[in-house]
Structures are given as C-alpha cells and as structure tokens.
C-alpha cells in the first residue's frame, strides 16, 4: 500500500530554511509553465474573453505586506512565512513611505498582511496612522497570534480602533483546519474567535467586523462563499458558540509551499488543469490586481501579493518605481503582469483578497 496524495505530510518548515529549490521564484514559475505547456496562456485567455489589455480599475485597496515573520508554518502558505523569517521585515522608513504614497491615492482601505503582521514592531504605528487618515483598516490575522503573551490586549486594542479582522479558517470543523494549518490550530483558532467575540467582534457591528477566510485543504477549488456562509454561521454558533460577520472564499494559489505540496503529492498537473478549465470570464473584472496596490516589506510595488511572492514586479511606466518614489499617475498607467498562477483567481467563482469575484 502506498499513501494516497491527501496524506502526504511535508516538513512543517519554510522552503527558505530548507534551502529548497522552490524557494526561488524562478523555479516556481518554471514549474508552472511546464505544467501548463500547450495550453493558452493567461494573457491569451484574457484576450479571448474580451480583455485585450489588462489594465487597472480605480485603486481602492492599499495592501502592505509588513514581512514574512509568522508564528505558524502552514502547509499551504504562499508567502513561505514562518518563525525563522525575521530576515524580511519592513523598516519604519518604508512604513512612512507607504503612508506618504497612500496620501496620493484615493484608496479607502489599508489592508495589512504578512506573515503575521501583528508580530511586526511597527504594526500598531501603521494601524494608528491609517485610522488617523480615516481609512478602513484590515488586519489579515492567523488568529493564534492573538493568544501570544506579547499580544495580550491586542484584540481589544484593534476593536477600539474599528479594525476589521480577516481571519484564516479553512473549515468550521477540526480535521481540515488542522490538516492545513498544523495540529492544534483549530482549537487555538476557536479560542481566539471567542476572544474576538468577547470584545465585540462578529456581532453585526460595522465597527467590529470579523470576516473569516476559507481556502481549500487540498487540490480543489473553494466553494462559492454565498452558498456556504449560512451553514458556517449555523455550525460555528451551534457547535462552538462562535459568531462572525461574513465568509470569504479563496482558491489556493499554486505557488510557494502549496506548490511544493502539489508537486510532492502528484496533484500539480490536475490542479492546474482544474484552474485553467475552470476559467470564468465573469470573475475577471473583480480580481484584486485591478483595484489593489501591493507593497512588499522592502518597498517594491506589485499588482498583488501573489505576484509579490513570485518577484513579478509591477510594470509601471516609470521603470524601477518603488514606494519611496511612488507616483500615482504612473501607477495607474500600467498593464497588469500575469502568468499561469493567475488562473487561480479566475477559476470557478473567482478568488481575491475579498473572496469570490463572480
């Protein structure tokens, strides 16, 4: 008997710490190109769907990736984040450059991500500065980080500032959650969700919004969020006494550690076929790269967090533009950079940082 693909367990460590070949984005891109060889490229597929040029819409979301440091090492992480990644952390100077750039844009939302952004020493500074500008602030939270002793009182602090929490939870039941995020992750997540509920999150208050983000624990597409949100709400309330406001569903991107799992489990080709065959023209207009700017820990600019992890810098008319030299007009005059992984955002119901797009 051999193990079935679903029980393949890769080391719970970062590609970077293992010096794995896939830690190099060029190696990841090569694997994706090879697995989709002979099929229409994403760009050609867009053209066929009536998008000869793939250009941005109005900029709404200013997404800042503070770095790769995280207290968890999830098997599907597209950032290759982990406890050993303190090598990649945004400086205070770059945070200030982000704020200056933010002031040039019409963005209504500052979306803070990582790693676990709450571990970054400038996290609270950035939240305060963004709120002082009247921006809606999103904290992309892994939940367990709220339970660390160093973060005692953080949930309440975020609540007082009206920060929306977008928390990762693969499933409302234990098995799938632990399979993806590590043994014990579900229990910690539930403890953190109860903590958030206790400070007013997830109870319909627009100033205490708790969103849950689900992504599949395996090589299949995410469900349509509107189809399953009611069931999630009922089950979490009934089984665990937890409430939340909205469910977002996100496909797993075939990059970084999830790509490693796809390769090791023999699922890469069939998963890519599923993404390519699942192309939904109706999901294109709402993908995140059209209304988002993504800034990396070292101040580079990207169309989205996934392109950031693949080192696919945004192609602005002002070549080499960074957050220090940011110019909004130049930013808007660009074509979005796409590769095979982009099929992950247009498959099925569509997938974005804001969940389904179709």
């Amino acid at each position: 008997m051999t193990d079935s693909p679903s029980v393949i367990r890769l080391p719970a460590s970062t590609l970077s710490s293992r010096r794995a070949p896939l830690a190099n984005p060029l190696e990841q891109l090569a694997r994706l190109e090879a697995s989709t060889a002979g099929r229409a490229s994403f760009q050609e597929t867009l053209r066929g769907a009536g998008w000869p040029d793939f250009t941005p819409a109005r900029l709404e979301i200013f997404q800042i990736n503070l770095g790769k440091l995280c207290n968890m090492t999830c098997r599907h992480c597209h950032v290759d984040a982990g406890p050993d990644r303190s090598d990649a952390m945004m400086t205070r100077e770059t945070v200030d450059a982000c704020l200056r750039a933010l002031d040039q844009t019409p963005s209504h939302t500052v979306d803070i991500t990582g790693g676990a952004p709450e571990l970054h020493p400038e996290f609270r500074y950035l939240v305060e500065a963004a709120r002082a500008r009247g921006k809606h602030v999103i904290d992309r939270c892994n939940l367990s980080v709220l339970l660390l002793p160093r973060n005692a009182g953080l949930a309440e602090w975020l609540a007082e500032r009206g920060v929306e929490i977008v928390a990762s939870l693969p499933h409302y039941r234990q098995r799938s959650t632990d399979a993806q995020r590590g043994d014990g992750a579900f229990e910690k997540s539930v403890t953190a969700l109860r903590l958030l509920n206790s400070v007013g999150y997830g109870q319909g208050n627009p100033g205490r919004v708790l969103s849950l983000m689900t992504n599949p624990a395996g090589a299949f597409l995410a469900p349509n969020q509107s189809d399953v949100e009611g069931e999630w709400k009922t089950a979490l309330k009934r089984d665990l006494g937890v409430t939340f406001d909205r469910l977002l569903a996100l496909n797993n991107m075939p990059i970084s550690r999830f790509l490693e799992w796809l390769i090791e489990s023999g699922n890469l080709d069939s998963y890519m076929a599923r993404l390519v065959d699942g192309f939904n023209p109706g999901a294109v207009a709402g993908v995140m790269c059209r209304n988002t700017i993504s800034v990396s820990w070292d101040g580079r600019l990207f169309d989205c967090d996934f392109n950031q992890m693949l080192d696919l810098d945004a192609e602005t008319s002002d070549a080499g533009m960074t957050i220090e030299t940011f110019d909004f007009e130049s930013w808007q005059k660009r074509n979005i950079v796409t590769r095979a992984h982009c099929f992950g955002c247009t498959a099925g119901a569509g997938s974005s940082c804001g969940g389904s797009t179709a």
Partner: protein
Amino acid sequence: MPRKREDGTTERKLMSEHYYKPDHLKNFGGISEGAPELGKKFFEYYSAVFAAGALTEREKALIALAVAHTVQCPYCIDAYTTESLQKGADLEQMTEAVHVACAIRGGASLVHGMQMKEHAEKVGM
C-alpha cells in the same frame, strides 16, 4: 479506427487493456457521437438536475456521492468526491454520506430476511 499493418493486413483493437480508464470520465461527452440528440438531452437534463433548486448544490453532490458508492461507479466516486469538497463538505461529512448508502444497501438485504423468515415459518413445523 482499424489500422493497416505494413503487410497490408488490418489490425483491430478489440478490447481495452483495462475496463476502467480515467480518460473516459474526461471524455464522457464523446458518448453523444452515436446518438447526438439523446446525448444532448441527457447532458442538458444532467446539468439541470445538479443546479441548485429545492436542494442546494452541496446536498445534491453528497447524494450523488452516496449513490456513486451504491452503484459502485469509480468515475462518479472521483467526480463527486471532488465536487463535494468544492461545495464545502469535509471528509467526515462525506464518509457519513457513504455510510448512509452502506446502511440502505445493508438494510435492503436484511429486510428481505423477513421474506425468508415468513417462508421458513410457513414450510417449517
């Protein structure tokens, strides 16, 4: 298609090497070739059956998964395992669905035991 050998004789592939091939599921639409109108009607009907109605798409996927085990169709088992997962079900829920199929199948055998019992009582002393 029959293939001509170099010596002019015809080679025919009479049988598959295996009874079940994964490609058959992917190419299922090809069954329409021999009867296009019936194929078209079947696939339209099939799509309509699985669209959300009084039951959700997920409930239908789980029913299909259970029935797939009853009819022991490997194509359907693969297809509706993936479909159930994509509709948000997890392994425990899908396993329970298979147990429903198992219970009905087992129960169907056992309930016929009543016929056995009645007949035995009739002919016995």
